[in-house]
């Protein structure tokens, strides 16, 4: 049988595998070259401006004050402490913002789907208005046109005498934990445990006998009962903390600076418009065939939603909502526009009059990146939990 003898060695430049390796090597060379160039520039430039490339500045005095801070801080604290203030302020506004905007967004999304024409149209108007206006504009607007325009503390606007707003701050009623609070917390923990156990027990009953489990009912009533019992047994340890206006100051309650309130409200309102559309879009994306199949099976409206529509809608919605949470967190950087000392504002203060811009800003961006990754990780877990039940 006539067959080909061993072919000659492929010249390297025609060998597909070699070319792949070569491609990577060339790319690496390019990157390394760029890195070398940049580091030369960096060294030269920082020397010329008599700046350093170290992180020693973190221990130097910050030299600026921050009035709205969740941790102890004064202008004599080191820069690293100022950074922490910025970080916690970012977490504060982003965390609260995410919770509030989810609630508002859900409500709006449901309104977008309402059979009532007026509700539908008005919520659509809200979405169309808010989504298309830049968030920076909205933040500046809420702060300078609304909060700053409020009267001074002495003439605070009172809301049913339990809350006050002025141009510097907003005070809301809160609660205070007194003696016996610890005992109550323990009883709450026990209640949660009991509720969880009840949940499992009712689920088992349902699996075995087919009896409707009513587990939500059982668990929540048990939790509430235990909570109430514990509350009284430990001597009603929760007191309402209603603020009072005394001349030029407030007594009691929880105090939010105008900057914080303006940023929070603007972010919540802005992001809710996007979440509303995600909610609406994901429910509408479920094809008619699914509705029909569920109905044909005899499932009631609520059951259709619970077992067929919502699980599928969630699968579509969660990645998009994750995106919005990240946006809200990143938009918290707009505190820099209105003097709210979140991370970006703090970093700006740090670089003014100091010479370590590069380090400061890279650190700042690094922190944001870390927070982004954390939120995404968390949302991914939720996504996994929601979607691995059943097919993709």
């Amino acid at each position, binding site marked *: 049988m006539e067959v080909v003898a061993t072919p000659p060695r492929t010249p390297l430049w025609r060998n597909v595998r070699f070319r792949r390796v070569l491609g990577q090597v060339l790319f690496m060379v390019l990157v390394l070259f760029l890195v070398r160039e940049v580091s030369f*520039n960096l060294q030269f430039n920082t020397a010329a401006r008599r700046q350093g490339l170290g992180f020693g500045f973190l221990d130097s005095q910050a030299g600026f004050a921050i009035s709205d801070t969740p941790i102890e801080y004064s202008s004599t604290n080191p820069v690293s402490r100022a950074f922490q203030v910025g970080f916690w302020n970012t977490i504060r506004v982003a965390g609260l913002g995410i919770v509030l905007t989810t609630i508002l967004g859900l409500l709006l999304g449901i309104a977008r789907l309402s*059979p009532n024409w*007026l509700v539908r149209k008005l919520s659509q108007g809200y979405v169309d208005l808010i989504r298309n206006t830049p968030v920076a504009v909205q933040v500046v607007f809420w702060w300078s046109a609304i909060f700053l325009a409020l009267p001074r503390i002495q003439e605070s606007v009172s809301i049913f005498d339990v809350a006050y707003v002025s141009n510097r701050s907003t005070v809301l009623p809160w609660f205070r934990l007194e003696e016996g609070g610890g005992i109550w917390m323990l009883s709450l923990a026990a209640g949660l445990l009991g509720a969880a156990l009840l949940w499992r027990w009712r689920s088992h009953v349902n699996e075995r006998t087919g009896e409707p489990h009513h587990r939500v009912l059982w668990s929540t009533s048990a939790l509430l009962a235990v909570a109430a019992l514990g509350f009284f047994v430990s001597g009603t340890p929760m007191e309402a903390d209603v603020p009072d206006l005394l001349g030029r100051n407030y007594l009691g309650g929880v105090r939010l600076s105008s900057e914080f309130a303006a940023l929070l409200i603007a972010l919540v309102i802005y992001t809710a418009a996007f979440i509303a559309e995600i909610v609406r879009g994901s429910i509408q994306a479920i094809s008619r065939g699914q509705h029909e199949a569920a109905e044909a099976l005899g499932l009631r409206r609520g059951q259709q939603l619970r077992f067929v529509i919502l699980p599928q809608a969630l699968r579509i919605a969660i990645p998009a909502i994750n995106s919005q949470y990240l946006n809200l967190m990143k938009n918290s950087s707009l505190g820099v526009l209105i003097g709210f000392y979140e991370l970006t504002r703090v970093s700006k203060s740090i670089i003014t009059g100091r010479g370590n811009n590069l380090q400061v800003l890279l650190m700042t961006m690094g922190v944001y990146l870390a927070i982004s990754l954390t939120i995404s990780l968390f949302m991914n877990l939720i996504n996994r939990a929601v979607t691995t039940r059943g097919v993709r």
Partner: protein
Amino acid sequence: MKRPASEEGYELTLGEPEGPAAQVAPEAVPATPGEWVRKNLFSSFWSGMLTVVTALLAAWILAKAIGFVFVDADWSVLKANLRVYMVGRFPLEEMWRVWTDVYVIALLAGLSRGVQPAMPWTLRRVVRWALILGVAVAVLLYLVESSRVLIMLAAAVALMVAGAAIGRRLGRVLRKPLIFAWILAFPFVVILLRGFGGVKPENWGGFLLNVIVAVVAIFVSFPIGLLLALGRRSTLPVVRTFSVGFIEFIRGVPLVTLLIFGVFAFELLLPPGLRLPNIVLAMIMFVVFSSAYVAEIVRGGLQGVPEGQYEASRALGLRYPRMMRSIVLPQALRNTIPSMISHFISLFKDTSLLVGVGLFSDLLSNAGRATRDLAFVGLEAEALLPAAFMFWAVAYAMARWSQRVEKRVGVGER
């Protein structure tokens, strides 16, 4: 066909919810107004209550808004700063450049509109346009004091209408040339401002600056984003790692911090002696920011191209560049059009973040500073609302246009 989720979800569109969500209002065959009201507003007791409550709320808000706009507000801050809002400190004697750009865009816009099939003039449409035009004319007459400016504006509108008429006449023949014209228009617009002894970017301001920054950013970031997307899909691990790393870093960081970095730290990385004006540094950051998002959009589009297309191309012996150019990218990029438009709208809105650096004179910065003048203290709302409106109007118009494009592209003969 799965579309990549845009950052802001614009493809979950405006307008009437379509689709079969059973909760949406029943299909229309409303006989009489009375029936319609009963079905849509008062279908049940609770629905009725809801209608009443929201109607009252809406009426109250509307009354407050109208009261503010027409009675309480002092619009002098706007009247005095109109030019600053629109073009910042752009020198008066060079304004002809801006006007020329406006005319070119107006003409192209008119032509593009004319080439599209005409939409029927329903009563609703006539009323809507009459209202918009009426209000626009009234507002302009109130605000603009120079009759010269009014005439130039009228000329722009006339040019647009003429363009539409020409477009309608010439029809589909213009489609391809128009695409090229638009692509060339953007560099042209920018060059006209700067070139031939023009105005330096430091002196561009106001709304003009926002538009230019957005346009430059989207333009320059597109090829970079495309390369990044291809890099991300590359089978060469080094290339892919680098692309992914870059994209994820940019996406995890707020744009404001990138801008601050660009203006206050980026120069340290550049060759010594290369001094770039702040606005150019900011534009570079916008380009960097935008390319990461463009990369993700293109990646989604590439994922939408079936594997079989690659296989058929390779089986036919097509090489990589030819395969990408003729087969993969045309399909991939068509998939991305709605998301790209959505991204452009976001980018345009994000140009307002220039205010965060504090050194620029874009529309929002100028609006914010307008009340520093002693004459206009306390007029923050009057200063900000027009700026907000201008951003909103452009974004809203583009979003609606995007809806139309989506319909057209989705239903092609292809």
